[in-house]
């Protein structure tokens, strides 16, 4: 083993190094191939297949897909259920995103020099490790409306003298889900942003304090510029996660076994209902079209966000 280290001539050493480099490079495919093959087979190819199938009329397994151009798309865009699904998904992405990030920013202002901040962070993070199904059921009990058997939210409201509200009625459920989403996911984004805030040199804040800066000024002029890149990444993560929201709404707004009323739909529920949901006849072609709409929306929003957030990196 040790023989390699005995240097002979400079040129021989170069050859050795080159040989080592070649041996290293030869390792690439055996190491990378298993993961890349799985990635291709289970993510890339199915995505392409979905795009192709979205241009066919196809009832599902047992039926053969027949090309029908953009019919799926025109029918989908014209349908009520898709319009609700699309609108709700956008509400969750934008309204939920604004709420979550506003809350997260507020928390970064306060948590940075607060006693017990670490514990608070750990507590706020907790809803993120709960299964969305369990979270949906749990929130179903919290927002339950049934005179005499009110859920926690209505119990508190009645206790305060207000009237109980039908939180989970189809017309209200979008608002309730948005609020729940903000509550459940803010911990995750607070955690990410706080990790970035912790890396900011404290002397910047000390300097600002000597200058008499208000918390808002400190946030505006120190925290935000210094965490901008992480905010960008967090925004991308939010967009990806909010766009595929499915289980939480499915369980919270519906009876649990089949899809909730149309007003509460998201794009994820649309795909599910047209394929594996037990409500109505399956229409895999339409579901594929909606799935394509989902991935197109993710791509557009992520690219836009990256564009919007782009600026020169700050070194510190």
């Amino acid at each position: 083993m040790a023989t390699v280290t005995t240097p002979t001539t400079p040129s021989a050493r170069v050859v050795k190094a080159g040989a080592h480099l070649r041996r290293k490079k030869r390792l690439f495919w055996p190491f990378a191939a298993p993961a890349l093959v799985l990635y291709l087979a289970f993510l890339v190819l199915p995505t392409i297949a979905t795009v192709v199938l979205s241009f066919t009329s196809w009832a599902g397994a047992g039926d053969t897909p027949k090309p029908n151009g953009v019919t799926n798309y025109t029918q989908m865009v014209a349908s009520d259920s898709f319009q609700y699904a699309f609108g709700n998904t956008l509400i969750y992405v934008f309204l939920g995103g604004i709420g979550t990030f506003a809350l997260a920013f507020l928390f970064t202002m306060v948590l940075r020099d607060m006693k017990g901040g670490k514990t608070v962070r750990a507590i706020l993070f907790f809803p993120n490790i709960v299964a969305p199904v369990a979270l949906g059921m749990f929130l179903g009990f919290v927002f339950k409306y049934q005179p005499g058997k009110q859920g926690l939210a209505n119990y508190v409201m009645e206790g305060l003298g207000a009237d109980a509200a039908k939180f989970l009625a189809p017309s209200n459920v979008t608002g309730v889900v948005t609020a729940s989403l903000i509550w459940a996911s803010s911990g995750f984004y607070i955690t990410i942003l706080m990790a970035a805030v912790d890396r900011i040199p404290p002397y910047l804040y000390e300097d600002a304090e000597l200058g008499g800066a208000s918390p808002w000024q400190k946030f505006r002029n120190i925290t935000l510029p210094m965490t901008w890149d992480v905010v960008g990444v967090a925004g991308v993560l939010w967009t990806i996660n909010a766009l595929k929201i499915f289980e939480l709404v499915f369980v919270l707004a519906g009876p649990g076994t089949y899809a909730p009323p149309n007003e509460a739909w998201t794009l994820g529920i649309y795909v599910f209902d047209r394929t594996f949901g037990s409500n109505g006849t399956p229409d895999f072609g339409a579901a594929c079209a909606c799935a394509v709409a989902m991935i197109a929306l993710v791509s557009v929003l992520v690219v836009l966000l990256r564009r919007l957030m782009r600026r020169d990196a700050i070194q510190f």
Partner: protein
Amino acid sequence: MSVTDDVEAPARPPAKPVRKPPRKPRPAPGSKRLSPLRVLGSAIVWLFTAGNILVLYWLLTASFKTPVEIFTKPFALPYQWFNVGKPFRNFIYAWNNAGFGDAVLTTVVLVGLATVVTVAVSAPCAYALTRLGVRGSGPMTNAVAIGMGVPFQTVIIPLFVVLSKIHLDNEYGLFLLYVALSIPFTVFLMTGFFRSLPDELEEAAALDGASPTRTFFSVMLPLTRGGMITALTLNAIGLWNETLLAIVFLKDQAHFTLSRALFTFYGAASYQSEYGGLIAGVAIVVLPMLVLYLVLARRIITGLTLGAGK
């Protein structure tokens, strides 16, 4: 308070130096000022935190209560089931009626195997992409990372059709899916860890005559142990909670995962107003994650932030 000190100080006769304890440095202007924003912020933070704790308390107590107690005395401690000497009645009901007994075994085996295999496949790939200096690694890493943004709904339809054709619409197919769909995130996370290792380590190993394979297994891989544990934990949590794929691919009740079983149980138990049992069911799914979280909170949080910060 410090203002009065300032006013008094010059009034003291300077002739006789009286020894007095050194004055505390005056706080910088602005730092101790109670701005309304700060007060409001702190209030919201504490309210929010208290709300979360209350919710957890409600979940834990409600799982021991009768439906009447749950809805009429939400904040009281459970009483009725303890009184009749069957405190775990809800848990027993949920366990028996939702088929959690089988589901726990399926979930633990499935999630355990899938996370280990995912990391075993992803770690060498991440190493190859970051450390072997092969041209095109950068774009390839990005291409894999993009996979994190693909919603499951986009791939589920062709996968279901193909896998059911070859009779893999069961827990084996689900295992394959779990591994494959966890790869983008895991590879992305692990590339971050491998990239942070210094080049000198590999050079030293090469000088000592270690083959590239050996360098990976005995030098580089052990150094990313922290990253691997993080990847294992995060994938385990994600897959433990995964429901959509389990709903689509698992048809046989005997092989349901926990979240899948809970999903079915929800429909059935809602009809019978078995709210106590349902909340106990939710608790059964949530509590293992709570324990895991309490043990590994720091690692989970650092892992997540590392993945996002890069």
